């Protein structure tokens, strides 16, 4: 790619569209200024509401976030100059707002007294720095995303190991009914968050190779193209793995996420609607089947159907019940249309996991319907940029990887936000970028890094053809 002479012959068609494509780096910089200023403003707001003074950490916090954004920006400018200009500011803004909400919950005496908060914000800032560092590493060392294609099967093995880690005795931790954590050197890590990316790499590599076989060798039945029995193999394997995750790690969210991501990528690779139908059927069968004998999942479903009963049971001291779901609904309802304002709500009443799984409820209460809708639209925009990257990518591997990552991101947002808002049963996952938790933040920064790399490759103008002194001057037609 780097040598212009070797590629001149292949680029006649794309040259027209890409000459003079602006890099949009200055747009990104301007947006980043807002992405840093808005959280800083929010931070000041929290301090004023809770302690009647601008928080003393405002300057260092603002500088910290600004520095991270600046590093991110400079690295993108240098190593991925044509990348999408919105992804980095969106991630920065969400991450910054999450930090503010976590700091706000740190101020709650109630959460401090039950060890659910107190110093989560500084830790989250550290994780953010680690996340941005990983982001930088991805952009510097991953010169071309197609390199990842070489590691298709290694990725498979890696993903399986990551997923199985929490089941290893002595390493895995069973926290609050779900076995999705491992404990290393005092840190709790959710390998599932990293497995999400590694699996996407595997699926993209695998499907790129097999897509023709999967797409073409099929029989038509009732308007659907049914795959051949032997082609069902991969989807059955992934389905089985998802079910195993569900059974052994009792983690509905991760299970749903992986299977959903696979179905999306399979559909994109083969363009066969039948896979979607199969996927939906299989996930329904799997979820209902496991729920019928797994008490933890059953209890989640019961809590979803009647959160008030769950609240009462928990209040009466019944073991294994939690009032969180109802508390989250009250937080949303009490926020109303415009919210109470930063620092003036009582989302600490959610107590356990108030600053991680349930952080959206804090936004719901303090920023109201308006704030949550804005937040959801920010996520939607991030996903949209990811899908756009997939559309723009010129190679099938890039397309599949980009849509896999974006689709998984969208599913995760849906599963978490839907769970907290009582739309679907609660699962043990966290809101990307917003929630307190190292694995999630670091993995999602890596995800954004990969998306930026793909989009840089996609949007990079082809090198100008070597000047040919014999050619006549041609008019350059630029599409709008």
């Amino acid at each position, binding site marked *: 790619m780097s040598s212009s002479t070797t590629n001149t012959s292949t680029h006649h068609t794309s040259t027209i569209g890409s000459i003079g494509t602006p890099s949009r780096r200055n747009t990104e910089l301007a947006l980043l200024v807002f992405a840093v200023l808005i959280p800083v403003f929010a931070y000041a707001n929290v301090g004023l509401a809770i302690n009647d003074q601008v928080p003393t950490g405002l300057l260092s916090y603002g500088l910290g976030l600004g520095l991270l954004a600046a590093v991110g920006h400079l690295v993108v400018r240098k190593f991925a100059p044509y990348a999408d200009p919105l992804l980095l500011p969106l991630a920065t803004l969400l991450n910054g707002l999450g930090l503010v909400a976590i700091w706000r919950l740190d101020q709650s005496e109630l959460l401090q007294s039950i060890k659910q908060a107190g110093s989560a914000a500084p830790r989250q800032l550290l994780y953010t720095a680690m996340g941005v560092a990983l982001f930088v590493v991805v952009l510097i060392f991953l010169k071309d995303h197609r390199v990842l294609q070489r590691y298709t099967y290694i990725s498979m093995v890696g993903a399986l190991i990551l997923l199985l880690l929490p089941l290893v005795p002595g390493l895995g931790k069973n926290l609050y009914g779900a076995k999705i954590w491992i404990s290393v050197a005092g840190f709790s890590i959710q390998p599932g968050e990293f497995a999400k990316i590694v699996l996407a790499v595997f699926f993209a590599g695998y499907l790129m190779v097999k897509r023709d076989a999967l797409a073409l060798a099929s029989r038509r039945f009732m308007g659907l193209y049914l795959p051949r029995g032997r082609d069902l193999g991969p989807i059955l394997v992934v389905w089985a793995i998802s079910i195993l995750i569900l059974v052994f790690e009792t983690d509905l969210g991760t299970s749903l996420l992986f299977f959903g991501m696979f179905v999306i990528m399979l559909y994109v690779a083969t363009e066969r609607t039948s896979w979607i139908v199969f996927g939906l059927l299989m996930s329904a069968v799997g979820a209902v089947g496991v729920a019928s004998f797994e008490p933890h999942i059953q209890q989640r479903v019961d809590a979803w159907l009647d959160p008030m009963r769950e609240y009462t049971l928990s209040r009466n001291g019944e073991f294994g019940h939690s009032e969180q779901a109802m508390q989250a609904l009250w937080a949303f309802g009490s926020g109303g249309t415009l919210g109470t304002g930063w620092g003036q709500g009582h989302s600490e009443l959610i107590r356990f996991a108030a600053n991680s799984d349930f952080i959206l409820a804090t936004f719901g209460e303090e920023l109201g319907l308006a704030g949550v809708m804005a937040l959801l639209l920010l996520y939607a925009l991030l996903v949209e940029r990811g899908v756009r990257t997939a559309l723009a990518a010129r190679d099938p591997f890039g*397309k599949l990887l980009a849509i896999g990552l974006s689709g998984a991101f969208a599913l995760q947002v849906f599963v978490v936000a839907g769970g907290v808002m009582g739309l679907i049963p609660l699962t043990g996952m966290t809101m990307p970028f917003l929630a307190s938790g190292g694995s999630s933040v670091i993995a999602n920064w890596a995800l954004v890094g990969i998306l930026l790399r793909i989009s840089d490759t996609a949007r990079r103008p082809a090198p100008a053809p070597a000047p040919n002194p014999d050619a006549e001057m041609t008019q350059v037609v630029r599409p709008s």
Partner: protein
Amino acid sequence: MNKPLRRIAIFCGLLVLTLLIRDNWLQYVRADELKTDNNNRRVAIERYATPRGNIIVGGNPITGYKETSGDFKYKRTYKNGAMWAPVTGFVSQAYGANQLESIEDGILSGTDDQLFFRNTLDMITGTAKKGGNVVTTLNAAAQKAAYDGLKRQGGKGAVAAIDPATGKILALASYPSYDPSTIAGGTTSDEEAWKKLQKKNNADDPMLNRALREAYPPGSTFKVVTAAAALENGLYPDPDKPTKTPLPWTMPGTTTELKNEGDIPCKNATLRVALQWSCNTVFGKVGSDLGNEKMLEQAKKFGFTSEQFTPVRSTASVFSEDMAPSEVALSSIGQFNTAATPLQMAMVASAVANDGTLMKPYMVDELQTNDLDPLEKTKPEELSKPLSPANAQILQSMMETVVNDGTGKNAQISDITVGGKTGTAQHGVENSENPYAWFISYAKLSDDSSPVAVAVVIEDDNAVRDDISGGGLAAPIAKKVMEAVIGNKK
């Protein structure tokens, strides 16, 4: 591959759209319901977030507030809480509120719509929000006399005093009582205090508001109602003409003789003499002669069988229907099923004193903002006319005879006309338990206006049975309460 990509984009859009719709459902459609749900702790946090307004008696607050730790910022305090508990009720961070504290919670906590303008103004000017005040009709001196009297007595008991002309409640005491300050917070000591006050752990049941919520057999004090019925129905229009009452008198339909207490001049006694000596035979026969319906009608006119909303609710007093003549006879001397709250008997005395007009009893005079601007003032309201003015004056003279020359001498006040009636109600199986000592009375000033009517009831487990009589135990307390009110008037 771009076609499925576009479809996936639409799918992602639908996911977000679903979330947006759900969010609107939650934070717009259901917002109010969730926000005001009583299980939602924010409701309580809001209630205790601002200093609560005060309950005021005679210009002085009988309540206050104190800052607490935790998410509830302020708690209620009470001055002389045990004395005022039947008036205020309680408000507790852990156990909610009752009685006046609960009924006027909107004003006191500052969330009432009437305070909306004031709250908005405070928000704009940056003044801290504070609840409004509730000004009561009570009379501090009378309340103190009532409570101290009961306390000195030592047994369970209650006092209710009313201003007959307006229906203003002047005293409302119950003993044994409790200090609501001890349960106002949300700490373990509040919890312990609360547990100790519960009826199942405390035979005294100190949280019972006996003045409003306990209906006792009224005994002979009910003879005032029976006398009113005799006058109003024209059975014996002249109180000084002999009634047709043999002695002994056997109750109709039975072979049981109705007994009098001791050897008293009841044979064919006039109404006045019968009331003076509290003749069971005379009033029992009046009741059975008039019949169930007329007696019930008269009792209802005095307020029996209805709850009163002062605005704190009082229990409905009882006079039964469909009774046999002998049961009507017993009911007419305040026995059998007949039961009355102290407030009810004070209403009976007040209607007689107010020349036959019964005013609706009330204890909230005015609602104010925290700057003492009036929001709402209660106007006196007529409830009924149990007696014609002429008959009321006849009954007054009879009740005055009771105090001057009869069983109620202990209630005499020098230079003041007092009318009253004693009562000693039997209760328990075969009358095995100690009777209740009752006294109801009113005082009249020189201009014939009556500033106070009062009812006192004492249930004394410790006293010897013979010692209990309305005149001995209850009348002195009634006297102190009347003196306190009159002292204030002078």
